[in-house]
């Protein structure tokens, strides 16, 4: 068949780099989701809306004349407290309950957040300008926005910092202990309530960073949160909980897959293709699982 991408090798390079850079950003959001899913067993439907709120924080700074890139420091700090407050107000009431209840609760939070953002920031689509320019490779045939490179770099930086924090710090170890066995952790003196609040705060902070990066690379609008939730959900499903390298790989893989699907299947099937992939992976998992069960018999 006659595909543009196979005729022009440079397009292949462009698509791969675009996919990977975007994938890294998604992986950061997904990592937050995996973290609180693993620790608290909560699927956060409001994940994308937290991201957008983080973006609006950076955008507000931009309007005030501060470079929006500072948002990657300010936004997570504010968002941590937003997450903490959210935990104290709502999440702590659903944390030990059925998964379905938590989905409902966070879905409610998502709606409230959307309407609030619409109310405060208006329904216009907005962008913040980083003025970072462009990196041109191979005689201008491959172009990479520096803002995307910056966002991938910041994402990696924060992810690495978080991994180290989780390994070395007291709170990090408490979080991991709670994830493994909340009851045992409690018996051994871990204040699981505090751990949960901190975990949700950290997740919100990660969303804040991602949001700030999105404000300079993509666009912001009060109602575009859901696609980010869905993508991170998918990445986590593919990678499994509590497995950071897998989250990173699956994030980048999904970014790549999406770009290539665009060239080969057409732009209109780009998101559909990702969903198809998800279904295939779930079926495959089930298939593997059923085999395992047989083996156990």
């Amino acid at each position, binding site marked *: 068949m006659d595909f543009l991408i196979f005729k022009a090798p440079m397009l292949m390079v462009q698509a791969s780099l675009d996919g990977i850079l975007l994938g890294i950003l998604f992986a950061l959001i997904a990592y937050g989701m995996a973290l609180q899913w693993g620790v608290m067993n909560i699927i956060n439907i409001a994940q994308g809306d937290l991201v957008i709120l983080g973006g609006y924080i950076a955008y507000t700074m931009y309007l005030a004349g501060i470079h929006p890139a500072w948002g990657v420091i300010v936004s997570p700090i504010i968002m941590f407290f937003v997450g903490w407050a959210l935990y104290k107000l709502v999440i702590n009431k659903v944390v030990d309950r059925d998964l379905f209840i938590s989905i409902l609760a966070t879905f409610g939070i998502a709606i409230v957040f959307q309407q609030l953002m619409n109310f405060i920031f208006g329904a216009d689509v907005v962008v913040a300008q980083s003025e970072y320019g462009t990196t041109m490779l191979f005689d201008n045939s491959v172009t990479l926005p520096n803002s995307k490179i910056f966002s991938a770099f910041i994402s990696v930086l924060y992810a690495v910092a978080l991994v180290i924090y989780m390994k070395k710090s007291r709170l990090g170890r408490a979080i991991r202990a709670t994830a493994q066995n909340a009851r045992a952790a409690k018996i051994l003196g871990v204040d699981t309530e505090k751990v949960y609040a901190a975990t949700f705060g950290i997740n919100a902070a990660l969303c804040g960073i991602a949001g700030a990066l999105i404000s300079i690379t993509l666009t912001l609008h009060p109602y575009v949160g859901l696609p980010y939730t869905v993508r991170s959900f998918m990445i986590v499903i593919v990678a499994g909980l509590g497995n950071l390298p897998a989250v990173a790989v699956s994030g980048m893989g999904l970014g790549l897959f999406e*770009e290539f699907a665009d060239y080969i299947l057409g732009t209109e099937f780009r998101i559909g293709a990702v969903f198809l992939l998800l279904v295939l992976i779930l079926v495959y998992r089930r298939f593997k699982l059923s085999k395992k069960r047989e083996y156990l018999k």
Partner: protein
Amino acid sequence: MNKIAKLFITSISAITLALVSFTSSFAKVEGDYIVLGSAISLTGKYSSNGVHTQNGYNMAVDRINKMGGVEVQGKKYKFEIIYYDDESNPKRAAQLAERLIKQDGVHYMLGPYSSGLTKAIAPVTEKYKIPMVEANGASRSLFTKGYKYLFAVLSPANQYLEVAIDLAVEKNGGKGVKIAQAFEQDAFSQDVRLGILDAAKRTGSEIIIDDKLPKELNDMAATLAKVKATKPDVLVVSGHTKGALTAIRQISEMKVDVPMLAMTHCDAAKLSKQHGKKSEYALCASQWHKNLSYKDKFFGSGKKYAKDFQKEFGYDPPYQSAESSAALLVFKDAFERANSFDRDAVRDALVDTEMQTFYGNIKFGPGGQNVAKPMILFQVRCKGDDCENRVVAPTKWASDKFYHPIPKWSERS
């Protein structure tokens, strides 16, 4: 059920009944007022354009009332509008239209914001035979359903960017051009796309990229990489404000060189303000621009309208406001020609409308769309960091020459 609850329910239903009987006496004309109804998006995702629409309506109501109102059978009447917030939700809009007609007794409707919501309301107004003049639903499918009570003061969506293709062909010495296009998958953008397909066929142009962007998508890098590789003569993008902002952001970042870039929703997206110089040379389809030389006795000229609007609401009127104001002028004209409040007489008068307003000429085609007004194209031009939209087509109204081709990014400062 205990006594208190029973009492409570009885009193609530009594009040509701009383209210219903009170409001249905409202009817079409109340004393000196002609009551119009509109469901409009004051909250939800269309709220900014919903407010532009409402401001346009209100501005015209004030102006017409101040200048003597509407004269029917020798008596002067004033306009009044009942608004409900449809929350940008089509289902809600249809419910509210029903409520306006059945409970509030409204006999004449003004349109909501956006094609989608107009599509939701039109079957309701049609069912009750209520004339509706709408100013913000451009989708072609609104005008092919044989609606008899729907009148749109704006040009249909398929005309939005046809002019741009003609312009590109003209610049190419009358020969067909290579077109790359990316349209969001929604009713409006797909109608714009149909217009381009027609124009391409008519001019012998070739469409080399035809991407349909999913609604959730806010990254066009793949489409733009294809554009870079295939070097078309013109790139056409339509995906509401998100599409316009994303396109300019990524075209400038990826340094995509195209001789001509045509889009929709540039002014709604405040393109020249949000992206500044990066948006320079973009061609944008618009229903209206204040510099056009149409005139009427209520608002004077477009420029005068813009000035008054700015004074009243504190911002420059987008075309959504201008066309909404025009809808009221159409209603006034129709009432006076019908010289009656009979719905069908008003409807027949609307069919015969032929007038000029500050917004443009208005004459309704068989489907209810305005056939007397061409779309205009403006181009973003910058002086230093100050960018503004200048009309470049059609030549009759142009204030500036169309700049073609767009300089390469390497030559732009």
